[in-house]
């Protein structure tokens, strides 16, 4: 296996709440291998978006890395200054976001925003940059790019806007693309088209993709490997096929069952209770209060282990079927 492009090592994040730090992501160990599509799955408040933002040094105010290490293309990101981060962003690691309406500057045409992404890294002439921007618009499947180049974001449909955002993110041919729920705000037919486009571009450009989603179905069809997060920590990482065929963590099982379609008339599966806020995370296993079969050992906090079946897992009772 070649060196990972992005590597989290016991990484943790927290928010400054005045007197202390409230943990938001803890003990995260994850490697993004070159050329793969890794799906990062979790519900609201799981810390998946914050983990993604750390890959570009774009954490919100008051949120800081608290410990561990995050290596980007082999370099320790804690040593990066503003200028080094700037050079990484867009050129080596790029990112697309959930809402293409608010993520594009409403006062500038989409074309000028792509040109700006080029000229942030290269001293090219305006004309050449424009040519490359047009080429990129064509590459992301926008027909009639000359006309769309001069359009303002609000003049485009959701799908076109997201394509334009992808064009701006990929115009510098980055090594890694971080995609934070880029299809959640879109319709399913548009979502399917965008996913297809990203997969095609990933192969064409030889990119590595970190795809964040709350939708297991999307990840199942797209990712090579899947990492599942719950309440600020990874609970299971495995190859996509293995994860869906034989989930080991009760949360993964519950999530898959909740999302799976059953025969008509059957009751729906669910996980009892609700996702806890960071301030109310239990001391021991964070999933224990919602787990169907917790035991006394679950009062302890489980560590990440590497079972024989491959991948990694954070559970004292792997593979125990959840009967609901």
């Amino acid at each position, binding site marked *: 296996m070649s060196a990972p492009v992005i590597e989290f090592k016991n990484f943790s994040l927290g928010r400054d*709440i*005045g007197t202390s730090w409230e943990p938001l992501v803890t003990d995260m160990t994850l490697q993004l291998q070159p050329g793969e599509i890794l799906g990062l799955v979790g519900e609201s408040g799981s810390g998946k978006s914050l983990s993604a933002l750390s890959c570009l040094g774009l954490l919100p105010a*008051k949120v800081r890395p608290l410990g561990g290490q995050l290596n980007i293309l082999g370099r320790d990101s804690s040593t990066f200054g503003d200028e080094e981060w700037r050079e990484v962003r867009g050129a080596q690691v790029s990112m697309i976001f959930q809402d293409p309406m608010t993520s594009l500057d409403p006062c500038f045409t989409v074309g000028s925003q792509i040109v700006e992404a080029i000229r942030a890294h290269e001293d090219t002439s305006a004309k050449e940059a424009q040519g490359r921007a047009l080429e990129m618009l064509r590459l992301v499947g926008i027909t009639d790019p000359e006309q769309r180049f001069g359009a303002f974001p609000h003049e485009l449909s959701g799908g076109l806007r997201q394509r334009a955002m992808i064009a701006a993110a990929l115009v510098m041919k980055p090594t890694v693309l971080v995609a934070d729920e880029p299809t959640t705000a879109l319709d399913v037919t548009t979502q399917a088209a965008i996913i297809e486009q990203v997969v095609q571009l990933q192969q064409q450009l030889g990119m590595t993709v970190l795809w964040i989603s709350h939708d297991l179905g999307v990840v199942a069809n797209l990712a090579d490997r899947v990492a599942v997060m719950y309440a600020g920590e990874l609970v299971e990482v495995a190859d996509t096929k293995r994860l869906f065929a034989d989930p080991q963590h009760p949360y993964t099982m519950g999530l898959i069952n909740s999302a799976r379609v059953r025969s008509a008339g059957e009751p729906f599966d669910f996980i009892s209770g609700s996702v806890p806020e960071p301030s109310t995370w239990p001391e021991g296993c964070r999933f224990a209060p919602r787990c169907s079969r917790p035991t006394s050992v679950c009062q302890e906090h489980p560590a990440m282990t590497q079972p024989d079946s491959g991948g990694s897992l954070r559970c004292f009772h792997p593979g125990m079927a959840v009967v609901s």
Partner: protein
Amino acid sequence: MVTSLVIAPVDVPESRRHKKRIGGITIPTWIGVGLLALCALLGLVVLLAPAFRNLWTAQDLRATFLPPLSSGHPFGTDNLGRDLMWRTLAGLGVSVAVGLGVAFLAVTLGLMVGIVGGYFGRAADVTSNIVIDVTWAFPAILLAVVFAGWLGPGLLTVVLALALTEWAGFSRIIRGEVLSLRERDYVSAARVLGRNKVAISLRHFVPNLLPVTLVLAVYFVAGAIVAEAGLSFLGIGAQPPTPSLGSTLAQGRDYLTRTWWPVILAGGVLTLTVLLLNSVSDQLREHFDPRIGRRR
């Protein structure tokens, strides 16, 4: 028209956004308590000023233009030898009373027109918009002067004139709020539950508009106090012998070459009062929602 009343925005420090709460009641900050105490003091001045009438009307022509800190006259005396401290306090009482009257009328009218315009159909909306824009076409003080010309000078004129101009900007804000509130699902739910427009306005709109209303009402009190003083200064507002900060200032101006303290003292009291009310408005806004009043 897009333009509307704009009041200065406040920026809430990040640390204060996480309010301490016990059982759903937000604990006021020390600043808040202090401001409330000062407001109570102001209310006391309004209520007690008429009772001490002989203190602020007593003339003493042997003791005119006494400087501040003279014995028995901490603020000094004016051209008729009246005690300036008592006159200033009495004038402040009149100003605050005018301010409260204006705020009450403007808020009531503004709420009604804003809700009717925003929720009672297109015809009502177009009509109320036109009325608002015509009112808006006249700068507040200008219309006040016009009203004064019509009704004759006096405090009632000031109250009516200011209330009838100030409601327009407020009403436009309320209309904007209602336009956004009416799209909430809980309003649709209430309609499906069979509530009528009046019931929805009273049950859902008014309570949710209360924070904006309160913040702007305090702001109106401050604005009306200044406007009253300004109009009295021009001779359009309070008529002698009614005490007023504006007429004290006008008098002070006439004798400016001789004494400066009436202007400084009356002006200072006026400024501090407005500062107090502006701070209260800012605190209220912080308490409810830092975004109130930022909209255009």
